């Protein structure tokens, strides 16, 4: 492992919707353990960027490289990690990355969970996908993770349909962290929750992220969320990144006119 290499490296990434660019010429590097917030108004291309990074939308220009070892080929196990262009990976390898390296927390928990499978089953599924075949161990691990996201153990066998919005979101977080990923994408994980629940979820995400040393790309329209958990911030407008830098710098001393507008439009209590 080489700390001189970023975990994720994006250069000139663009995605087109027909003639129009959803997001254009985005470049950044993400390092292990770093939390990157992507902020901007709705329609600014934040979710398009995330979709592209997560391989859900096609990359029309530029390239995305991720630090990983080739699974097949020379010395598969001991192969050195290198930055690999995601477009060169086979579908099997990309899906392996989803099982072992990447998590994705959806805005709407129903998109990321099996709503009619118990919370324990939801959290245990990534483990079973990774080849765990011991029920007792799977259940113990799922229980441990549900405890960490503050779901009472006696609710473990209830389906998420019976849970509140905040609980569902926490189950989703547990499901995405249980297999020990290195990179987690989060798409507005706290919107749609009321303020006190939001605060608790953010607090939880922040402590888990620092504890596990995860790299996170979090998309949000809420500057307070960016301020609270991210190290660096990208500000997007009309598909372009108009400003980037340390979160405190961007929010305390915004350079771009739009960022100044965005920062000054926060309601002051």
């Amino acid at each position, binding site marked *: 492992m080489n700390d001189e290499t970023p975990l994720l490296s994006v250069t000139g990434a663009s995605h087109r919707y027909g003639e129009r660019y959803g997001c254009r010429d985005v470049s950044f590097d993400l390092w292990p353990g770093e939390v990157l917030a992507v902020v901007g108004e709705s329609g600014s291309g934040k979710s398009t960027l995330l979709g592209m990074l997560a391989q859900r939308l096609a990359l029309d220009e530029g390239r995305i490289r991720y630090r990983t070892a080739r699974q097949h080929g020379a010395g598969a196990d001991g192969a050195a990690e290198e930055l690999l262009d995601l477009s060169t990976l086979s*579908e*099997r390898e990309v*899906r392996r990355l989803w*099982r072992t390296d990447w998590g994705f927390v959806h805005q709407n928990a129903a998109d990321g969970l*099996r709503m009619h*499978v*118990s919370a*324990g*089953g939801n959290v*245990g*599924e*990534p483990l*079973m*996908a*990774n080849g765990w*075949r*011991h*029920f*007792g161990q*799977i*259940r113990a691990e799922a229980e441990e993770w549900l405890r960490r996201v503050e779901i009472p153990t006696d609710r*473990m*066998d209830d389906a998420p349909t019976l849970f509140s919005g905040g609980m569902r979101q926490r189950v989703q977080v547990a499901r995405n962290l249980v297999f020990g990923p290195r990179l987690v994408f989060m798409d507005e994980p706290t919107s749609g929750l009321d303020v006190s629940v939001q605060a608790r979820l953010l607090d939880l995400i922040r402590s888990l992220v620092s504890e596990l040393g995860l790299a996170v790309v979090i998309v949000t329209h809420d500057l307070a969320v960016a301020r609270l958990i991210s190290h660096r911030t990208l500000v997007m407008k009309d598909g372009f990144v108009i400003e980037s830098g340390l979160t405190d710098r961007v929010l305390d001393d915004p350079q771009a006119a739009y960022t100044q507008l965005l920062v000054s439009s926060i309601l002051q209590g």
Partner: protein
Amino acid sequence: MSGPRIVYNEGYLDEQTKRVVRRALLKGVAIPGFQVPFASREVPMPRGWGTGGVQVTASIIGPDDTLKVIDQGADDTTNAVSIRAFFEKVAGAASTTRTDEATIIQTRHRIPETPLTDNQIMVYQVPIPEPLRFLEPRETETRRLHALEEYGLMYVKLYEDIARYGHIAKTYDYPVLVNNRYVMAPSPIPSFDNPKMHQSPALQLFGAGREKRIYAIPPYTDVESLGFDDYPFEPQRFEQPCEICESTEVYLDEVLIDDQGGVMFVCSDTDHCERTLTARELDQSNTDQSNTDQSSTDPITDHITDPLTEVNA
């Protein structure tokens, strides 16, 4: 006056269709457990009554074959009788109810108790060939999961059973891993019969007419029922023997015998039951020469009290 004579092609299906089905069968045998799509044709029975099995049988049967048809273990139910009569008519094949005399056994729900041999072919009627169907509704996605060998989802179902009931509650159509590669739905046979598929000397063919899929297990192939390390697969067990032939280690049906809630447990495999009973009676009459009372004709009806006689009495 006789009606117009209809002459069917041998085996009912036309030769082109039989070739299509045979090609799918060959592919299925070459890739054990893999679901091969095929152009399912109309046969003179409604879909859901075994049209897949009938098409497979029609493609492999010839005048030299002897066909046995099992429906819920029995040879004498409507569907079994009419499928047997159908192939006697259109293929000129002989038919039998004896497992050991059959060369082709078309089945719904059971594998015979009598061990199969290497000159027999099992044909299963399959309603839902996709084992992941109720977990992942998208066919495009399930095919990808099979292709990439991602079977974590299958275990979610087993996990849920154990979490809820304390054991794996699925007792039929219990998923199996074929030849260490494909997870396969073995059609709705009881999990009791699952071990019989493992290293079976008979060729096993599966036809799903409505879903247009064919798959196969070649002879002597590993068939492993899924389970967890600490909750392994366990076939169903029965405590009591069959009440007619007194066989143990067989699959039993619960049969209502009166309107007072009386039940008896009997072999689901009628052929096995009859032969065991005959063998035992022969044994008895050999040892006990004086025993000539062989009044029993149908063992089940003997146990049923005729409501009319009760009323008349």
